[in-house]
């Protein structure tokens, strides 16, 4: 950390250089400049802000991150070493936030589905969508991402088209001499009656610290079905801040699975607006914490229209000195009648030093609604352990089995076999410290 004292982060200089190096259409250039001004005003959040009360990002703020210039290089071998799931469909690989065409492949996509880099798509219709959902007001990290807008992934699905195979977006942060700041942006636009599955994998390696600051914007038009998976497997010295914003049309169906497996500080924010009648939204999350990790999940579901359902289930398994924060907000607007919202957050503490802070919130302005939330924090059931031990399982096996069982219902919701099997194996191999 001593280097942080000697070299203060210089974002203004980098922004000026970035603006010159990465030209954008006028409207987006304005967006970028406004975003940087907002970031300058806000600075990195402190624990004095209610939304960041339990997540101290001082560690992130003091590192002089550098937005890498030039085209990144990464060998296919080092990509394999990250053990990212193979989904067998279209893949876009981003290294340090920039598209690596050599590693990517978009063959086999059906007609009406386009998966391209943002830099390529930016002159098209997409330009009007970028930054429209993920507003920068009050959001320092989103502002920082928007200020360095330039590359990312664009997924467009035409009306009525069903994309059978999942679309895999891999965001890899490759170590450099200086701490790397990688800021990908994903824009998904699913047309009416379309269906699409998108998987974001975030990973990194190397010795230096890095920050992966991602923003994802999802439009689901009427009757669209969008499944979104985010698997965060950053390195031990990697920070990750992810913002997912989705706008749902009438009778559309959106589900998000936020899976956090690694990273020093990981913050996942999800904000879903149910903007049409009959919409349905599922937000699920699974986080495993060890060492001194901090995992923070923030969700907001905005029931803006009547007759919408939402389901939310977040589960955490915490070991070592790890900490978890969960803040789930459900807003039911005036006249959003017949809303049915369920939220649940469960945490399992495996060690003496693990900590959990959970804050479910309901804000309800309509009367004909069903809203429930529940939160539990506990440890492995002694009786269950005893039962398994009496059936000749070792202490270790018994604990593994119970931990796996704790997460089992969440795994059941994951429709992609490749991801589910990988998690399954991971949960069973993870050796909890006995006692």
């Amino acid at each position, binding site marked *: 950390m001593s280097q942080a004292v000697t070299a203060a982060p210089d974002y203004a200089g980098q922004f000026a250089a970035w603006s010159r190096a990465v030209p954008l259409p006028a409207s987006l250039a304005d967006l970028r400049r406004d975003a940087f001004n907002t970031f300058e005003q806000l600075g990195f959040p402190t624990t004095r802000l209610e939304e960041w009360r339990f997540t101290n990002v001082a560690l992130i703020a003091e590192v002089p991150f550098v937005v890498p210039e030039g085209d990144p290089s990464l060998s296919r071998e080092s990509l394999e070493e990250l053990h990212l799931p193979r989904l067998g469909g279209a893949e876009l690989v981003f290294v340090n936030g920039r598209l690596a065409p050599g590693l990517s492949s978009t063959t086999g996509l059906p007609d009406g589905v386009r998966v391209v880099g943002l830099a390529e798509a930016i002159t098209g219709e997409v330009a009007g969508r970028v930054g429209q959902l993920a507003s920068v007001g009050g959001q320092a990290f989103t502002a920082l991402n928007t200020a360095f807008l330039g590359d990312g992934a664009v997924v467009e699905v035409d009306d009525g088209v069903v994309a059978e195979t999942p679309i895999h977006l891999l965001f890899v942060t490759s170590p450099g001499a200086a701490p790397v700041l990688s800021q990908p942006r994903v824009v998904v636009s699913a047309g009416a009656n379309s269906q699409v599955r998108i998987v974001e994998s975030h990973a990194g390696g190397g010795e230096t610290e890095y920050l992966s600051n991602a923003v994802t914007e999802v439009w689901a038009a009427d009757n669209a079905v969008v499944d979104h998976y985010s698997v965060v497997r950053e390195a031990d010295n990697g920070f990750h801040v992810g913002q997912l914003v989705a706008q749902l049309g009438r009778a559309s169906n959106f589900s998000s699975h936020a899976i956090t497996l690694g990273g020093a500080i990981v913050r996942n924010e999800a904000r879903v607006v149910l903007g049409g009648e009959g919409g349905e939204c599922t937000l699920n999350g699974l986080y495993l914490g060890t060492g001194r990790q901090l995992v923070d999940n923030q969700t907001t579901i905005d029931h803006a229209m009547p007759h919408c359902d939402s389901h939310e289930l977040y589960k955490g398994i915490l070991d070592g000195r790890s900490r978890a924060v969960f803040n789930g907000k459900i807003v039911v607007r*005036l006249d959003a009648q017949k809303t049915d919202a369920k939220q649940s957050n469960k945490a399992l503490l495996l060690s*003496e030093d693990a900590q959990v802070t959970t804050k479910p919130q309901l804000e309800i*302005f309509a009367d004909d609604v069903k809203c429930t939330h529940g939160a539990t924090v506990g440890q492995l059931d002694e009786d269950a352990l005893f039962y398994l031990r009496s059936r000749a399982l070792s202490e270790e096996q018994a604990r593994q089995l119970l931990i796996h069982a704790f997460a089992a219902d969440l795994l059941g919701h994951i429709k992609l076999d490749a991801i589910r099997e990988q998690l399954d194996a991971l949960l069973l191999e993870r050796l909890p410290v006995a006692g």
Partner: protein
Amino acid sequence: MSTATQTVEELAKQDYKYGFVTDVEQETIPKGLNEDVIRKISAIKEEPEWLLEWRLNAFRVWSKMTEPEWHNVHYDKVDYQDISYYSAPKKKKELKSLDEVDPEIRATFDKLGISLDEQKRLSGVAVDAVFDSVSVATTFKDTLANLGIIFCSFSEAVRDHPELVQKYLGTVVPHSDNFFAALNSAVFSDGSFAYIPKGVKCPMELSTYFRINAANTGQFERTLLVADEGAEVSYLEGCTAPQRDENQLHAAVVELVALEGATIKYSTVQNWYPGDAEGKGGIYNFVTKRGTAFDNAKITWTQVETGSAITWKYPSCILQGDNSVGEFYSVAVTNNRQQADTGTKMVHLGKNTKSTIISKGISAGLGQNTYRGLVRIGKGAKGARNFSQCDSLLIGDRCGAHTFPYLEVKNTSSQVEHEASTSKIGEDQIFYCRQRGLSTEDAVNLIVNGFCKEVFRELPMEFAVEAQKLLSISLEGSVG
């Protein structure tokens, strides 16, 4: 449906039954707040030097504080220099028996249905009646004195038992605790003090009726309740206030100390004037209530909040001793433009500490009801257990119900559970009752009472009846 709504509206429009002003001569300090005012209050009350110092310290801290903004209630800012900080009925002479009490004040209590004589003769409840800021009469003192129980007004306690007051005052709610507690510490006028000696079980419910009178005098009550080792006490606090057009400020502090093995049950029925249907007038109620429970002690807070334009209170338990128990049972009702931000804090520090939170919020009209609670399990709180349940009932489509529970767990051997639900009274429920010959109004009453049953059964008998009546006045039938 529409008839139900009509009934609701009719009931919601009912005038505040307890709104009347008693005409008694009052001694009032001019408006404003500065060190001189505090010195004057202290001088009027003939307080010892240490207490004056304590007040002044609180004032200095308060002057540097800013009014909190985090709460989910909105109101016109209070001008703290436009309030008179002391008013007392003019003392005519020392009061020795009830007959000497001002007949007008007696009549006021009669209207409220708590005539001192009645209370004394029939219910066996000792009433320390607080009329505005000074206690005018205390009953059953002798009976209690025989057991060594001290139950008197705060001023008397300062005069007669300074060592007890000095030992415990501010130990649970320090003078710098929060904006409103600091204000109270600086200017508190009077309140109640009770001390239950070791091993004594208080034979009767201790009770205080608070009443805001005289326009423009905020009321700053201070209650200190100490239950010594193994002692047991049940304390009732009830509030009604006369109808006013100007907002009145009420910033009270209640401190409970439950020493080893002691049990304190503190029950409140709060029915300050809530303002009219447009939200004009009404009491601002900013209260800090907290209890510390030592080894094996138990503190129970039960509250029924139906009044006030703004309710801001979080009766809390610091579970400091091993095996201590904290409980919180609450019914909060907001109607018309009332706003409530209320809940509890359970801070588990000792081993095997247990806490239970049952909160029922009912919103009607344009009312906004917020539950805000904290459950903190400290590092050393091995085997701590918490169960929280907060349910909201919505009546009408323009009201709001909000829940902000904070759970902070720093110990793995603890178990914390939180549940919350929000619903409205189902048409099928009303239909079912109507089918069996109940009027819509009765049906709603029945359902609301059922919704609150878990809390009401924790109330002492005397209060349970009053609570149900209050609920009927505030709400009855307001389900559409």
